[in-house]
């Protein structure tokens, strides 16, 4: 069975001018220099106030008005329908079926990129929100009153979204993984069924807790894409489109419980996807052999060993963050550990985006060529249709040079971690009024950032 090259190790680097590991040293030096520059030049918090300014009311009226909302919602529902239909009725070959590329590349990778630039663009296209709002409106019309809702448990926070995020990535990189001589592949029929189950679950939760409450805390894709949208300078407030200070939206994102788990889940799932075919390949195969020797079936042993390593990656990244928080707690005048844990989680958002860019940038460029040529014209992959005359199109792998991809990866990681340092430094200035103490607390975040940068570069160098 064929499968999508989701391990994104599509290219082998040509001769780099210096060994790959030296980039990790250079990136660490950039981080250290940025840290000292921040401690010298950034002595008062700047992100606590967004500095939001509305744009022209007419623009908001056009872009956010009811006709546009109905249109975007209808597009979202239509595309979900096409994806599910292609998954259920199309070919079993994942690389020829629109469902897999559309869901795991176009949406999963595309929305974070564009949300970070343009704001929460998923919200108007969210098919479940559109269905939920339509159903709620219909109920109100018939019953003459809004449907009764349960109060969303505050302590649950964003934990359902964090677990859902891990489950979604598990489906892609573990359930559909290959290794140990076993090629399972992500069956598009499974993707179609999973999308239907998720739709039923999401609509049930929306009926229980309300559409907006569930989208803000529990709906995996709203929370995940919305997290990246907080980095954007564009946002909507009280129905008006406006501009705010870059990165300032992220400052208060993590105050809801479970938010740190969401961003750590994002980081760990991307890391595991990269390490699965590189740094972790040997250890995973060792565990796979032990489990299959112990009597597990080949597919079960493969999925079990992948699951264990994915959970370990989550635990490891969470542990590095907690060590950083613990270290900050030792600085005189520190707030509680809980406050620190919540207060600095947003500084990981640019890193999560950097990891996404670094790991999936080339895959996105290649697979979108497939998406907008043969997959668009022949979504079922049965060679029976050629809707737009592009069914015979293909992927041009020469569009990106191997070294160009490497430099984009390094740049993404360095910029992401420097932005993480900036956000953490700004928050430290809120918690420690003495800027010297604030800087001292950030030694630990510097160590965390250097660790994540070197880990990220190691993963990339061992897969590319």
């Amino acid at each position: 069975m064929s499968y999508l090259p989701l391990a994104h190790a599509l290219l082998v680097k040509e001769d780099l001018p210096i060994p790959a590991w030296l980039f990790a040293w250079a990136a660490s030096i950039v981080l250290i220099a940025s840290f000292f520059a921040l401690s010298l030049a950034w002595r008062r918090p700047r992100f606590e106030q967004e500095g939001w300014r509305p744009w022209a009311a007419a623009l908001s009226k056009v872009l956010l008005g009811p006709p546009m909302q109905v249109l975007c919602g209808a597009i979202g529902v239509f595309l979900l329908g096409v994806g599910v239909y292609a998954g259920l009725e199309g070919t079993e070959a994942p690389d020829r079926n629109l469902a897999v590329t559309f869901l795991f590349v176009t949406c999963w990778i595309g929305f974070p990129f564009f949300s970070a630039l343009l704001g929460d663009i998923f919200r108007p296209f969210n098919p479940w929100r559109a269905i939920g709002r339509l159903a709620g409106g219909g109920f109100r019309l018939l019953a003459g009153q809004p449907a009764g809702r349960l109060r969303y448990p505050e302590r649950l926070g964003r934990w359902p979204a964090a677990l859902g995020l891990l489950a979604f990535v598990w489906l892609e990189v573990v359930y559909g993984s290959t290794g140990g001589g076993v090629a399972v592949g992500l069956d598009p029929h499974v993707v179609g069924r999973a999308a239907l189950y998720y739709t039923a679950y999401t609509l049930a939760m929306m009926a229980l807790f309300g559409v907006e409450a569930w989208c803000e805390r529990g709906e995996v894709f709203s929370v995940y894409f919305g997290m990246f949208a907080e980095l954007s300078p564009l946002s909507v407030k009280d129905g008006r489109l406006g501009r705010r200070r870059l990165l300032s939206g992220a400052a208060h994102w993590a105050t809801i419980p479970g938010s740190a788990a969401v961003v750590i889940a994002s980081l760990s799932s991307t890391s595991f996807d990269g390490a699965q075919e590189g740094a972790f390949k040997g250890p995973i195969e060792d565990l796979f052999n032990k489990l299959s020797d112990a009597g597990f079936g080949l597919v079960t042993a493969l999925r079990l060993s992948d699951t264990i390593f994915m959970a370990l990656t989550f635990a490891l990244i969470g542990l590095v963050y907690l060590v950083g928080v613990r270290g900050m707690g030792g600085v005189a005048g520190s707030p509680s550990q809980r406050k620190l844990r919540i207060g600095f989680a947003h500084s990981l958002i640019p890193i999560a985006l950097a990891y996404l860019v670094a790991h999936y940038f080339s895959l996105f460029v290649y697979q979108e060529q497939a998406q907008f040529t043969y997959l668009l014209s022949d979504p079922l992959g049965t060679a029976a249709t050629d809707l737009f005359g592009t069914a015979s199109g293909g992927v041009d792998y020469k569009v990106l040079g191997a070294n160009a991809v490497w430099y984009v990866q390094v740049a993404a990681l360095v910029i992401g971690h420097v932005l993480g340092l900036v956000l953490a430094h700004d928050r430290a200035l809120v918690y420690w009024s003495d800027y010297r103490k604030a800087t001292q607390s950030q030694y630990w975040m510097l160590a965390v950032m250097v660790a994540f940068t070197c880990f990220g570069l190691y993963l990339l160098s061992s897969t590319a």
Partner: protein
Amino acid sequence: MTLPLAHLGHWLWIFYLLPVLIVVAGVLRSSWLERRNGRSRHREGRSR
């Protein structure tokens, strides 16, 4: 003569770990110095 470098690739991770260890060592040292200075300042304050 061929150098036994066939397995060098298995040890490249050390080069990625070194910058992290250097920074962590620097952080630990500065924290230790800060604590020591704090203690000595505290002692001086009490002796006055």
